[in-house]
């Protein structure tokens, strides 16, 4: 979009929406929607409260552990499925089912298996994030140009060298894309886990604020969470752009 000859970045339109929010809030049209400025003020206050800080630590820790687990397991699994047909045939079906199934229905089951503490939340993050990582890694490995692998073989690459010097690198753009999508899903997983099973961390804050109509805080928390999801996605996207720069020659 260009205006008076200047390029306006696309995300800038969110500012327009914020202004509209402010107007709607000030007109008091919807009681759920306090003015945006009030929400911002609430956000500033919120981040200073110990309960927000505690919730953030709880949530972040569960999120980080769940993500680490899903990357550590998901990437090798994806590579395995990309390279070995029988593994793909045996596991592919489940990966596909779980990647698009309404996993929220399973979340209450997790509790039975993992108890109530952090473990269930970690498991929820893992369950939400891993499948897309596996699928994208697998797709990345599948898309590696056969000639690149033949090239390595023809120059006498050993099996470990083939994996570490070629396959991992060649699939890196897709692996990163998978991780990015996985992160976004993981954020959803952590929130759904906290809302549906054990009411802790952000889930507890959301429930408290919405049940008690503390709308400014509710929206402030929402914005913080949305911003978090978008910022980490953006960071990974930066890394991806860098990788894709080197992979520019992939026709």
């Amino acid at each position, binding site marked *: 979009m260009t205006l008076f000859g200047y390029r306006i970045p696309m995300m800038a339109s969110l500012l327009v929406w914020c202004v509209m929010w402010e107007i709607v809030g000030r007109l008091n049209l919807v009681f759920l929607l306090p003015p945006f400025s009030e929400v911002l003020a609430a956000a500033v206050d919120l981040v200073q*409260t*110990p*309960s927000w800080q505690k919730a953030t630590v709880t949530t972040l820790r569960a999120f980080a552990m769940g993500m680490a687990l899903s990357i550590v397991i998901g990437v090798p699994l994806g590579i395995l499925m990309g390279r070995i047909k029988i593994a793909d045939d045996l596991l592919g079906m489940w990966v596909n089912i779980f990647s698009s199934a309404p996993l929220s229905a399973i979340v*209450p089951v997790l*509790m*039975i298996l993992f*108890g*109530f*503490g952090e473990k269930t939340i970690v498991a929820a993050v893992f369950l939400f994030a891993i499948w897309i990582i596996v699928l994208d890694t697998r797709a990345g490995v599948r898309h590696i140009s056969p000639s690149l692998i033949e090239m390595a073989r023809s120059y006498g690459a050993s099996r470990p060298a083939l994996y570490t010097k070629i396959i991992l690198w060649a699939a890196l753009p897709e692996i990163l894309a998978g991780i990015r999508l996985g992160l976004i899903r993981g954020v959803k997983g952590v929130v759904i886990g906290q*809302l*549906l*099973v*054990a*009411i*802790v961390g952000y889930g*507890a*804050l959301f*429930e*408290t*604020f919405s*049940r*008690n*109509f*503390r709308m400014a*805080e509710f929206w402030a928390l929402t914005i913080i969470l949305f911003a978090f999801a978008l910022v980490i996605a953006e960071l990974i996207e930066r890394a991806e752009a860098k990788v894709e720069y080197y992979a520019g020659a992939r026709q």
Partner: protein
Amino acid sequence: GDMRIAFGDLPGIESIQTLAAIERAKERGVNVELIVLNDEDLAAQAIVGGQADVGIGAPYTLIQKAGVPIRVFAQISTLRFFPVVNSEFYKEWKDLDGQDVAVQARGSGTEAVMLLMAKNQGIKLGNISYVPGSEVRRNALLQGTLKASIVDAANRRALEAEAPGKFIVLPVEDLGASDEALFATADYLKNNAADVDILVEELMKTAREITENPAVAVEFRNKYKLLPDLGAEADGEITEYYKETAAAGSLALNGGGADAAADDFAFFSLAGQIEGDPASLKVADFWDVAAIDRAVAKLGKK
């Protein structure tokens, strides 16, 4: 020792008493970990599955059904719920015949109250929807998306304050049944009697202190920094709530026991949540009164 207590719902102002008792138990060396769950069922399930030690709720159905022996060991409060209808549509119980109502959850006390009243009034309710959170139902009533529901005291007052005259509170006979009680597995009660005793004593003490002077509820809140996310404005509501609750005498001063069990049997079997003739049900199958007996012996009966 360690004690994991499972809440079946997000703590609200009605939980001040319990939360204060827990804090005091902590002061006396019981290492309590609070687990807040989305649903009363989950709390009960957590006890059965051994993922928590003490649950809060009134799990009569589960006690009867689950293979694991679970016992209620102290009543916290008795039911105080208020069926509310939008006066534009309904005026009295009879009008609710065949109409849709919303209650807290399946198998909850709110559902039992509605079912019981319907039975007593000789009407049949239409669809029952489950909407967790009294606050949510209050708001849905205000928005007009619900026409008949049941809320707790705090939200009834809020309804009256926000839309005077718009809602009618339908009369309910005194129920006397448990709203919230503490429960645990028989094994746990046997093996952790000391911890359980401390908790039960503190619960009784807070109940007695609040009933004597409802204003201490706010003091508890400030002292133990309870419910920090509700902001300072909640203090007024808390005072009001406990004034009313104390006046109605719904906080259990002696931890319930056999009398409470008998009331519960009558209520929950009428509501269809436990099977069998109330008279033939044995207290020992549902309750373990040892802890309250010891506490009453120590603190005296009120």
